[in-house]
């Protein structure tokens, strides 16, 4: 089959599943809904794999235009750009989605919202596919908003719980902030380049870089890139727009795995990589990206050290890893960023699903202080969790090692102003990652059970464990992609890198194959930091010295427990200000002006005017006659005076 047909099958199958399950949410049985959505996602996955096969054979990038819905030339259309980047993303999205669908059969069993859940999952997959396959900004934005919407729906999935709806709202609102930047960027782009079509815009990137933007000393291109990156910060949860992601853990665990770890949050990363021809032209934007990514990678990892909810720890780890991907973007190592996205999708989905397995065994308890000793009772979960954690910390040989090590090295090669800072933060982040991963492992799987649930924990059934094992295998296998991704030119047709910041090309000069990379890995500062921090972690958490150390670092601990005060800051300033504005609008604007002055005021005015005017209606004939006469006299007088 040729490429356009496969692309349409991918979107169509998922779309059909989502629409059927969504419309039939009240009539479909659980089995039917499961069959429909899994069939849809399965077909999409097979089509994606077929596409990937075609591109592995060296197909050229293709655009598939289905429908124009605006005046021609503005790029307002439903069209797909199928190249190596979108195909990689399609495979990741459909594969993770398929595994999560299967996993959810077991995880969501007996939930009253079962069919709704599957409909949302498929809808999410559809939106994500539109996002990655789009060949213009508008369709990208539709997918972008679509994943935001489904994320909101799924975080608030258990809407009867106390915190779920507000967590969903928070995610939605914070994303809205980022989307606002994205919209501004799109508007500026449409104004400056006159089109929203990728190819048209990319062709003009150099002209845009020459053009000076109004109201700032930046070039037009930098302004657009900064706005677009604000959008990416919202979606990929970069500091300071990261606050929604930890709260999003209120949603069901499969959702955390799929949306808030493997796919949706990577949309921002994907977007920047997709727009590399633009970002390459703006060193201002690249520097900002480096800084934001570095801060996120380091500081969010620190918070992970003190979180006590198993999913929250993994969520902070996700934030930290997203920071790494962002830094890689800043260093123009887009391929490394996408590769880390790729490996991270697998090991983070694995970690989340394993965590979900633990949560199921704990009867929906999520506090790691209640766990302990689960390693012996849940061997499959523990083994897969260990594989995921090792990949996360970047142990040589595991997937995370190749991707993260590449990023750190790329940072070292970058000449940008903030690259040394980012390099330092990335190295520090490695140590932190190792510490919180070890802490989590020790709390959950080592030692003695600290609650009755932990003592009676059981391995869940096969729909849960099979995806775990599959993902663990994929996690191990994903690392072998390093050569293709980074040096094999797999993404070459989709990414544009200026030779001035081509860090990956510099790295390629002393690339000596995977084995060499592993050997070389043992000589880098990162590995020494990792080893030291694992050792420290062993003493702190394995031997229990952490409790003795706690008083000494209590101030640091409280800062971390406050999550650097972002939530308090936002609460005090933005939320309260928004409330004040809303109150003012409600009281002064709505109640007083609209209700009081306009609505009731009209009635009051009418009543008063009528009360006054009814005095005129005396009912006496003579008064009416007098009125007529006075009118006549006045009219006569007017005619006379007018002459």
């Amino acid at each position: 089959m040729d490429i356009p047909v496969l692309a349409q099958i991918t979107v169509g199958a998922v779309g059909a599943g989502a629409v059927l399950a969504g419309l039939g949410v009240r009539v479909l049985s659980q089995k039917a809904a499961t069959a429909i959505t899994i069939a849809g996602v399965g077909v999409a996955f097979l089509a994606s794999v077929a596409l990937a096969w075609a591109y592995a054979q060296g197909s050229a990038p293709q655009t598939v235009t289905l429908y124009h819905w605006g005046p021609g030339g503005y790029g307002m259309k439903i069209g797909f750009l199928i190249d190596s980047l979108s195909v990689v993303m399609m495979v990741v999205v459909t594969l993770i989605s398929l595994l999560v669908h299967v996993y959810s059969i077991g995880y969501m069993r007996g939930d009253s919202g079962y069919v709704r859940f599957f409909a949302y999952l498929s809808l999410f997959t559809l939106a994500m596919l539109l996002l990655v396959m789009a060949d213009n900004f508008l369709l990208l934005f539709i997918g972008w908003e679509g994943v935001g919407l489904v994320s909101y729906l799924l975080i608030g999935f258990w809407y009867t719980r106390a915190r779920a709806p507000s967590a969903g709202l928070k995610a939605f609102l914070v994303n809205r902030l980022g989307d606002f930047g994205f919209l501004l960027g799109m508007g500026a782009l449409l104004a400056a380049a006159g089109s929203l079509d990728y190819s048209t815009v990319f062709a003009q990137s150099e002209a845009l870089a020459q053009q000076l933007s109004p109201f700032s000393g930046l070039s037009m291109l930098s302004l657009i890139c900064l706005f677009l990156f604000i959008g990416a910060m919202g979606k990929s949860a970069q500091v300071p727009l990261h606050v929604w992601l930890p709260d999003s853990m209120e949603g069901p665990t499969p959702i955390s795995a799929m949306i808030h770890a493997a796919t949706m949050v990577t949309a921002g990363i994907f977007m920047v990589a997709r727009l590399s021809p633009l970002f390459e032209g703006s060193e201002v934007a690249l520097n900002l990206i480096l800084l934001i990514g570095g801060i996120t990678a380091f500081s969010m990892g620190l918070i992970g050290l003190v979180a006590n909810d198993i999913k929250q720890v993994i969520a902070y780890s996700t934030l930290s890893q997203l920071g790494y991907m962002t830094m890689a973007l800043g260093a123009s190592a887009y391929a490394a960023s996408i590769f880390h996205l790729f490996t991270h999708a697998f090991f983070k989905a694995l970690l989340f699903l394993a965590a979900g397995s633990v949560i199921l065994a704990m009867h929906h308890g999520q506090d790691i202080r209640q766990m302990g000793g689960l390693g012996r009772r849940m061997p499959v979960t523990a083994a897969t969790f260990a594989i995921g954690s090792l990949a996360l910390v970047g142990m040589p040989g595991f997937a995370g090692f190749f991707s993260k090590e590449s990023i750190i090295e790329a940072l070292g090669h970058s000449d940008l102003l903030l690259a040394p800072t980012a390099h330092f933060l990335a190295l520090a982040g490695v140590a932190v990652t190792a510490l919180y991963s070890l802490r989590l492992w020790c709390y959950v799987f080592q030692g003695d059970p600290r609650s009755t649930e932990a003592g009676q924990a059981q391995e869940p059934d096969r729909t849960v464990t099979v995806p775990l094992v599959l993902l663990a295998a994929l996690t191990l296998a994903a690392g072998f992609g390093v050569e293709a991704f980074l040096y094999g030119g797999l993404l070459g047709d989709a990414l544009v890198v200026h030779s001035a910041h081509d860090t990956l090309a510099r790295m390629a000069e002393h690339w000596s194959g995977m084995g060499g990379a592993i050997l070389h890995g043992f000589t880098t500062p990162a590995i020494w930091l990792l080893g030291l921090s694992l050792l420290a972690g062993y003493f702190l958490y394995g031997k229990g010295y952490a409790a003795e150390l706690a008083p000494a670092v209590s101030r640091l601990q409280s800062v971390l427990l406050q999550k650097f005060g972002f939530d308090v800051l936002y609460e005090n300033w933005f939320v309260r200000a928004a409330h004040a504005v809303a109150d003012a609008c409600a009281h002064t604007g709505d109640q007083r002006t609209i209700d009081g002055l306009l609505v009731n005021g009209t009635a009051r005015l009418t009543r008063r005017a009528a009360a006054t005017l009814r005095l005129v209606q005396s009912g006496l004939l003579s008064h009416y006659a007098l009125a007529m006469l006075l009118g006549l006299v006045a009219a006569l007088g007017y005619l006379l005076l007018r002459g």
Partner: protein
Amino acid sequence: MLSLTHFMLLSGALFAIGVAGVFVNRRHALVLLMSLELILLAVNTNFIAASHYLQDLAGQAFALFVLTIAAAEIAIGLAIVVVVFRSRETIDAEDLSEVRG
């Protein structure tokens, strides 16, 4: 030598008497109707005088229509007076104020 002004002054005076009559007799419905008749008579006289001096028959035709409508008005007005009188035993216009707002 008679001029249009003579007749117009006369009908103006008649009109003013009629108007004053409406107010002097504002309570007596029948005298009110009589005052209205005087006003209409003044108007007609004016029409006919103008018709004569301008040698245009339109004025007379209009006077005829005014007479017609005045007759209709009087017929209805008297009928109302009779009905009111039958039901209330009075024709005092000041007592007829049910439509007061």
